């Protein structure tokens, strides 16, 4: 290693260290006001991360689509977000919040079970599930927003964007998995989602969902 390359490496390391120090320096943020939120689109985007039932359903559908191959992945990717949005728009027309926890739980329980089984269901069944569950969750989101004067169309659009990104990343990752053990990890994830759904059936019965 000559002197010039050593100096370059040293400068690189110093640059990275300085950048990390600036980026990761922890200080009080105060950027987000609790009462104003992040704005409707970002509220919608962050909604998915804050709502485990929605997240689990979208995740399970993405895993199922990925396990079923690239064609199913593409179909779910371009069907789920618009259907979610459509369901939300229908929900916005409602005057009161409608939420049926049993249907919400069944959506990720059944999809998770299909992932755990890894039996490659027909594409039509995957599309029917995507349509039904996507519309249902969007509808619940829409009615909640209508009842609580939430973000409206822009928030629903944000949710759809988040669903699109999640499905794109997860299903593409699963499709790319060629090794046997890698697919097994996906099936294990499916079994976890099913297990969560089963427990939730009990909690809902107890009124503690």
């Amino acid at each position, binding site marked *: *290693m000559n002197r010039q390359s*050593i100096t370059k*490496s*040293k400068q690189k*390391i*110093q640059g*990275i*260290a300085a950048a*990390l*120090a600036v980026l*990761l*320096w*922890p*200080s*009080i*943020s*105060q950027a*987000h006001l*609790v009462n104003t939120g992040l704005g409707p689109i970002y509220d919608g985007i962050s909604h998915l991360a804050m709502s*485990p*039932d929605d997240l689990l359903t979208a995740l399970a559908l993405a895993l199922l689509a990925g396990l079923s191959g690239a064609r199913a992945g593409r179909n779910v990717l371009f069907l789920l977000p618009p259907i979610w949005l459509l369901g939300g728009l229908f929900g916005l027309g409602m005057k009161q919040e409608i939420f049926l926890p049993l249907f919400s739980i069944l959506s990720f329980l059944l999809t998770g079970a299909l992932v*755990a089984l890894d039996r490659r269901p027909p594409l039509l069944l995957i599309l029917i599930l995507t349509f039904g569950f996507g519309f249902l969750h969007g509808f619940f989101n829409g009615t909640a927003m209508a009842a609580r004067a939430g973000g409206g169309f822009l928030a629903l659009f944000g949710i759809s964007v988040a669903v699109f990104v999640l499905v794109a990343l997860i299903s593409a990752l699963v499709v790319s998995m060629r090794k046997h*053990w890698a697919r*097994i990890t996906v*099936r*294990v994830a499916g*079994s*976890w989602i*099913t*297990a*969560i*759904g*089963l*427990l*939730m*059936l*009990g*909690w*809902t*019965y*107890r009124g*503690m*969902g």
Partner: protein
Amino acid sequence: MKSYNKNTVALHFWIIVVTILWPLYAWAHVGSGEAGGFVTGLQHPISGLDHVIAMLAVGLWGAQLGNPALWLLPVVFPMMMAGGGCLGLLGIPLPGVEVGIAVSAIVLGLMVLAEARLKIYLAMVIVAFFAIFHGHAHGTELPAGQSGLLYSIGFVAATGCLHAVGIAIGLIHRWQVGRLALRGAGSIVCGGGIYFLVRALT
């Protein structure tokens, strides 16, 4: 020159570590209502030694049996455990839950100790049967005011991670000394099960 580079890297490394870990208030997220539950669920399976040794034994036995048991057992267990939890939540009683949990450790420990090569469906039935007891006892202990969904996610994730730890330990099975060590671990699990059985019966 090589040592100079090492020192520089070490210096920068510690600067970054100190900077990242420098404690200041965050105040970014205000938790309220049913925001909690995940950590409680995550901690719960780890807090009971009877649960822990049985989970580890499932992973160890799976590693001994190899494919497809290696992945089938950890797929079956959480689902049946949740099924047991669901039974408990629905108010369907299961007699001798604590005894069942203790016996699960004994049986699974014995399987690991004997390096029992049962048929896969039989191994699945054994694991599934005992998983119901674990779910019935542990899956229903949600503290008041916490989210059932977040608790369930944490509970299932922690159980799965315990299996993964068992499988990871079980990978030593490829070596002769590792095989012996695994059988020794089976005897420890079995002994733990006997202890919990005595405690449950007295």
